């Protein structure tokens, strides 16, 4: 474990990513209690630029709401959407991929055609349609994002399982009388975990982007402040008050960048053969 972290830390980008993400997590966790300003309350006159009014370091938006409060409360929503939807996507994708890869034959055919059905529809369009059908609440936003992002997980896991199931230790497990469920959960999946973790870290980033895009289009939950909502609400005043889109935009950029850097670092740390190259 210690060795793994040393390998991870050798990638300087990954370390920077980890620092940024830790900062975002701390803000999301401790921000609202420490900065209890309600992000929906109008506190000052609208369009106050940053660093002009005392107590409002990032100024106010078109309705006179505190931008810093929005940013802090939005961090919580963005992170939660990213993490939860990724977990849900893994819960769908991993079993589908594992079953398809392990059993092959018609099970594989059926599950993969089902997966391809989702893959043929552009994921963003599908998410919009799903949200148009459901109500735009946080629960359904997470569900929609999970539904459009599980197919790559299923395909990755299927590929890994296909190659792992022909290993001799899997054959030995068959001979020693273990059933398919035990073989999949004990012999096969633990060896696919590193690829899944790397993919998952990148999926969190994609999910944050998706949520922002949906909120930008006005399909976000109207009761929660999110970074995407802030950009969407400020787009009409882009020329007169550019900082209102710029500030949450930078927040999204940094979080997504951090997650991508971490994903790359994890890839180096968990795939030792690739990591050796740098030694």
């Amino acid at each position, binding site marked *: 474990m210690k060795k793994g972290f040393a390998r991870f830390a050798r990638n300087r980008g990954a370390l920077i990513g980890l620092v940024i993400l830790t900062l975002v997590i701390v803000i999301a966790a401790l921000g609202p209690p420490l900065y209890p300003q309600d992000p929906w309350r109008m506190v000052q006159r609208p369009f106050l630029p940053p660093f002009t009014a005392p107590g409002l370091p990032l100024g106010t938006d078109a309705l006179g709401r505190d931008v810093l409060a929005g940013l802090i409360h939005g961090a919580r929503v963005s992170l939660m959407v990213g993490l939860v939807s990724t977990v849900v996507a893994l819960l769908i994708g991993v079993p589908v991929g594992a079953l398809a890869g392990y059993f092959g034959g018609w099970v594989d055919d059926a599950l993969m055609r089902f997966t391809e059905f989702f893959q043929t529809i552009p994921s963003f369009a599908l998410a919009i349609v799903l949200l148009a059908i459901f109500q735009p609440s946080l629960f359904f936003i997470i569900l929609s994002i999970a539904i459009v992002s599980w197919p790559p997980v299923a395909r990755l896991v299927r590929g890994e399982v296909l190659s792992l199931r022909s290993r001799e230790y899997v054959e030995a497990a068959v001979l*020693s009388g273990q059933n398919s469920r*035990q073989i999949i959960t004990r012999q096969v999946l633990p060896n696919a975990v590193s690829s899944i973790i790397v993919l998952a870290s990148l999926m969190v980033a994609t999910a944050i982007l998706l949520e922002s895009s949906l909120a930008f289009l006005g399909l976000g939950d109207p009761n929660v402040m999110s970074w995407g909502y802030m950009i969407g609400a400020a787009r009409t005043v882009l020329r007169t008050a550019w900082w209102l889109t710029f500030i949450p935009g930078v927040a999204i950029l940094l979080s997504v960048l951090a997650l991508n850097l971490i994903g790359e670092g994890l890839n180096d740390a968990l795939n030792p053969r690739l990591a050796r190259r740098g030694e």
Partner: protein
Amino acid sequence: MTILQIRNLSIALPKGADRPHAVEDVSLELAAGEILCIVGESGSGKSMSANALMGLLPEGVRPVKGSITYQGRDLLQADEGDLRALRGRDIGMIFQEPLSALNPLMRIGAQIAEVFEAHRLLTPVARQSRALELLHEVGLPDPKKAIRAYPFQLSGGQRQRVMIAMALALEPKVLIADEPTTALDVTTQAQILKLIEDLRRKRNMAVIFITHDFGVVADIADRVIVMQHGRIVEEGPARDVLLHARHPYTQKLIAAIPGPGGEAKDDKQGAPAILRVRGLNKIYKTGGGLFSSPRVVHAVNDMTFDLHTGETIGIVGESGSGKSTAGRCLVRLVAPDSGRVEMAGVDMASLSGADLRANRRRIQMIFQDPYSSLNPRSTIGRILTEGPVSYGTPRAEALARARELLELVGLDASAVTRYPHEFSGGQRQRVGIARALALQPDIIIADEAVSALDVSIQAQVLDLLADLKRQLNLSMLFITHDLRVAAQVCDRIIVMKQGRVVEMGSADTVLTAPEHDYTRALLEAIPGRDYERALKDATGVPACQS
């Protein structure tokens, strides 16, 4: 005349490796037209020395001391451009695995032409005709067709010939052959060895031949260097080293060569048959779409034999002979198409579900590759207890049994908490054997169980198997491509060719008076047969008894 000289070469390994130097203080000289064999077990640094010659060391590994002099120039000081000019033109190299050394997407002719192109020699037309000549020279059947072929269309031996043709393209003065025949069948190996020998004579080329097989050394070497842990332990003319080895390590290696006469063979035919195989068939169909007929391979063709209690039968054959498929059919890892596999009156071939599970514990398997046969994410304890636990043994009891088994196979009982990567290849294979024994089977199928191991480790594992067999009264099917190994451990031998059993009989008869031409060809292709006789005369004991 010395053309290549290595003086006091030391190569440092990166920090955290198991020893500071891959190669330490190695000196050697190579004369024109000489075949120098470097022998050693895995990790002895024999390949590293050769790679240093070509400037092909992996990143992080670098020479720290000494010199490599070729025609008055120190190769260690040469820059990349000089080395590139030297590679291929002056020093050629062939590798162990001919499939991964060839580009799968290029035709053979283009790959050979590329060698000339890299050195800006000849016109494109002349390159093709030269390629054809080369393929002819290395004895490929139908070179005109081969030049248009892709690597996957050739057999392993043919690919190795192509690799040799490429290495010879620019008429190098030195050829480095790194285990060039290890991945090949014995008959193919014999042909490739003969080819290298012929080419050396015709072109007065010096050859550095890296191998772990003393039989090969005996057949081909003029001089021998024996390496252990990165140092040269013995050096001299082939005859002296092989017949009058001075260093204990060399003596140990020579003693470990498997050969006939290891175990006293007894006839177990009188004992009751524990496994009856009748008319076993397995056919593989691959490909076959709308417009092409499928390729049909009869992997196992009408196999019939009895295995008696306490008996060891060797199934011998070259790759593709169906021997592994046969073994996998018996335990139902592969479903046979027809035939009966009777074990104590139950037909294994027709069982399914719970019945199959209940009967399968009586027949267990030891696998070939000690690196892929143990789950890298499970502790040894878990690997050994999973089987018994899934058949209902309480975990604590299974764990106690696992500890006993580990001691039985010569490992420490404390190994239960460790992971497979903490063990060497030979130790892992012992764990594999313990796993097979955990379910207390009557029959063990060993599928090339010692092929991936070094000779000295191989000898230890074979001894262990023989001991266990006696203690536990096991019956064993020993699948191998190596007739020498089969001769040492088996009571009876089945020889397979293209899915058919071509000869079956007691080990002594098959090895000394083979009836079938194919068996005879296999026996003749074993490297170092004359040498074993000479060794017997010189020392009075056969090679295998140590």
